[in-house]
């Protein structure tokens, strides 16, 4: 079902944990759907100095969080915002169709955290244009066509 990459990131997830004095925190998903992703950022000079995640969810949700954090570590905020769910899925050597929503969740967790950062610091980013923070009720599963 899962690629070796997915299994690797599920088994040895990178960047698991919390950042106590995080500059930004984002959380998406809800327990009803069985997926919650929470990301913590340390940001310096509009660059991701550190990122950690906690995820309640299936194997691909955990792997997607892990891969997404790895992909944006050290990147600029604009680069982080540009990360698409497809890129996450591809980096994982693909996800089953029914699991693509997990990669969407990872993309959204990043956006949500950077939105938090922007709010706290009164900043604006191109990549956040039109972005609405999640209310926690939306069904992210619907976002991707199988």
């Amino acid at each position, binding site marked *: 079902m899962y690629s070796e990459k997915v299994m690797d990131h*599920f088994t040895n997830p990178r960047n698991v944990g919390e950042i106590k004095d995080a500059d930004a925190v984002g959380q998406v998903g809800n327990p009803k759907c069985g997926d919650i992703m929470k990301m913590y950022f340390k940001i310096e000079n509009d660059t991701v100095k550190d990122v950690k995640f906690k995820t309640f969810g299936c194997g691909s949700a955990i792997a997607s969080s892990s891969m997404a954090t790895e992909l944006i570590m050290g990147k600029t905020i604009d680069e982080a915002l540009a990360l698409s769910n497809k890129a996450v899925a591809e980096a994982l050597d693909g996800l089953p169709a029914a699991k693509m929503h997990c990669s969407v969740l990872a993309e959204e967790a990043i956006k949500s955290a950077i939105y938090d950062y922007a709010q706290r610091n009164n900043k604006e980013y191109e990549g956040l244009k039109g972005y609405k923070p999640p209310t926690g009720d939306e069904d992210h599963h619907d976002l991707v066509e199988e």
Partner: protein
Amino acid sequence: MKVYMDYSATTPVKKEVLDAMIPFFTEQYGNPSSIYQMGQASKKAIDEARDKIAKTFNARQDEIYFTGCGSESDNWAIKGTAHALKHIGNHIITSSVEHHAVLHTCEYLEKQGFEITYLPVDSEGLVSLEDLKNAIKDTTILISIMYANNEIGTIQPIEEIGKIAKEKGILFHTDAVQAYGHIVIDTQALPVDMISVSAHKLYGPKGVGALYLRKGIKIHNLLHGGGQEKGRRAGTENIAGIVGFGKAAEMAYTDIEAHDKKLTTFRNDLTKRIMEAIPYTRLNGHKEKRLCNNVNISFQYVEGEGILLGLDMAGISASSGSACTSGSLDPSHVLLGIGLTHEIAHGSLRLTLGDMTTQEEIDYVVEKLPAIIQRLRDMSPLYEQVKEGNR
């Protein structure tokens, strides 16, 4: 170590069963409808298998009809009754925790103009006899309540339900796919009219089921065509499969008390030790009215698929009511049916035992599981809240 603990999903075919099947592939392949010797030999083999299965039900040979799977038996019993009796009424009573083979069949009939009552269950998964009585109408033509639940193992009060059905003159079908091989189902004593079973749940091959149809009951066919199964189920008979089913059923009922005793002990041991070792857990299903092989526990703050993957990496095969493993978005309708929240339902684990289960395997699972749960909890933002006192 390899540990299979998903016997309710399917079972291995026993060696004796396979041995009984083998000749019917390459040597004794005659079509049972044919009059030459090889055809008649196939017919005889089917009759013998039918006899064996009839015996397990204390039933007549001509009350057993072979099908292609348990789902077909369910579809046949329910649709066949619905169409045969629609001039009498259009109301069917079932429960909210049935297998999809029953539920989706009922939902389909609903679209065709039938009226379905889905009885709720209590927190342990039992339907209420009062609810059932209250649901019965003049138009009720069928009650279909499963014998034992495939996820949480709860055993319904089949005898009492059957009595109510009989009193009211309503046909009663029970999906006994999970009960068969664990519980003695005596059709002479039990007022049930139709029983669905499936071979691959009791060490027979996949792709064979049966319907017990009480003598005299007339329902419509589901598969029309040739005159097989006394004209009630078309299709060239899966002889090897049927022979295997017969053998498997015979073996399952040869010493069912010992089977029950052994698995019950294992089940209780496994349940107790997991619950003791891991906090924030909940046993799903009824404590006593429960299949001897079923353990179903929810682990709060984690999601079931992760548990399964963790177990799989440790060589343990199990299943979960999590949405992620079913391919649907919602977690198990059974777990929601007994009142679990989505969140807790997602974190369920089903371990089902079988004839090859050993104490060593039980010990191994008890040894491995805590760390698997702990690792996932350590990754879980929900568990973080718990530790922080916010949950």
